[in-house]
């Protein structure tokens, strides 16, 4: 056996999301499992968004990180169930996001009822901490972020959107 499960998770926790380099792939919640069979390590990953172009880079970085630790037979397997949700991002990672300048996601609901208009949700500016904010567009520089505006410090900022 190359390493135990806990050690493998520690190594994976050093692989950063290429688009949000303050979060590791473990903190992002996309590492669902690690399977160890002799010398072979299979990392079970779930995609964030169907079209997220970073997923391929993330897979390559996971494999590179494991090989650098001496895992000779590292593989990645993709699973779809259960579907990724921002609820899997832990509190300490949310604090890192905010410190980095990205407002953390609010609560994701499984409610598939489509509401017209913005939901009233407390959104705190990561710079000045004011809640005098608004979502300008649900779509931002990457699939996972919205464009927001702070009326207090008059700066645009991004929010990791709840899904």
């Amino acid at each position, binding site marked *: 056996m190359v390493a135990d499960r806990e050690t493998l998770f520690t190594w994976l926790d050093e692989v950063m999301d290429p688009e949000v380099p303050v979060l590791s792939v473990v903190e992002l919640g996309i590492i669902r499992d690690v399977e160890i069979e002799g010398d072979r390590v299979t990392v079970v990953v779930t*995609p964030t968004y*169907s079209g997220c172009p970073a997923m391929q880079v993330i897979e390559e970085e996971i494999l590179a990180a494991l090989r650098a630790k001496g895992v000779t037979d590292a593989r990645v397997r993709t699973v779809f169930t259960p579907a990724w949700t921002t609820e899997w991002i832990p509190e300490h990672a949310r604090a890192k996001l905010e410190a980095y300048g990205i407002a953390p996601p609010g609560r994701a609901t499984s409610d598939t009822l489509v509401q017209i208009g913005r939901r009233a949700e407390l959104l705190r500016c990561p710079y000045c901490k004011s809640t005098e904010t608004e979502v300008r567009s649900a779509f931002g520089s990457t699939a996972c972020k919205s464009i927001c505006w702070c009326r207090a410090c008059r700066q645009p900022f991004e929010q990791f959107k709840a899904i």
Partner: protein
Amino acid sequence: MTVAAALAPAYARYCQQLGDDRLILGHRVSEWCGHAPILEEDIALANIALDLIGQATFLLGRAGAVENAGRDADALAFLRDDRAFRNALMVELPNGDFAVTIVRQFFFASFSRLQLEALTRSPDTEMAGIAAKALKEATYHVRHAAEWVVRLGDGTEESRQRAQDAVNDLWRYTGEFFLTTSEERALAAEGLAVDPATLQAEWERSVRDVLTLATLTTPATSWMQRGGRDGKHTEHLGPLLAEMQVLPRSHPGASW
């Protein structure tokens, strides 16, 4: 799950059909990149196109796996001719003005959301997982399009007229979403497909609610266009495929 051998060819074609709707619409929407009326919409439409193409990649990948003939998602997307595509005619139509694009997004996403919601209960666990992920995306696609339908419809005289024209022009293409093919009926009996006819009433209700909010008139249901599910397309699909497929066909196996 392994699909019963007798159903596999039909199920592979059904997965292709699900993928084709999203691939062709995703390609069309991507044409807005760099051309949308405002920056936020340029970003939004590019994001939506990416979601649709991502969903298509998974669905065509599933189609290839079920077919078990060595074709992956890329082979299905880039190496089939127009007659082998099973997408609904609406998604291959040119983008038109912003109102046409938004109304088409609204009509399709409203359908897609209901279809995906039902597919989350598929006995094919791979499909159920793909659908559960795509459903989250389709839900915010509906919200985005519906908010714009209301803004345009309940906006200026000009935006209202354009939105109403788009609704009137595209309405005749909505019937095809709900046509049940004989293969779909057989697959639906096994729970592997959703009989789209069962989604029609809910689609019409949700669409009518938003059009009413937008002060737009829902057209009376009349004669409907059809053909896409049988591979009989409009003259617009060929040029779209030529642009989409040229690179992998001219340079087989190219990577960059």
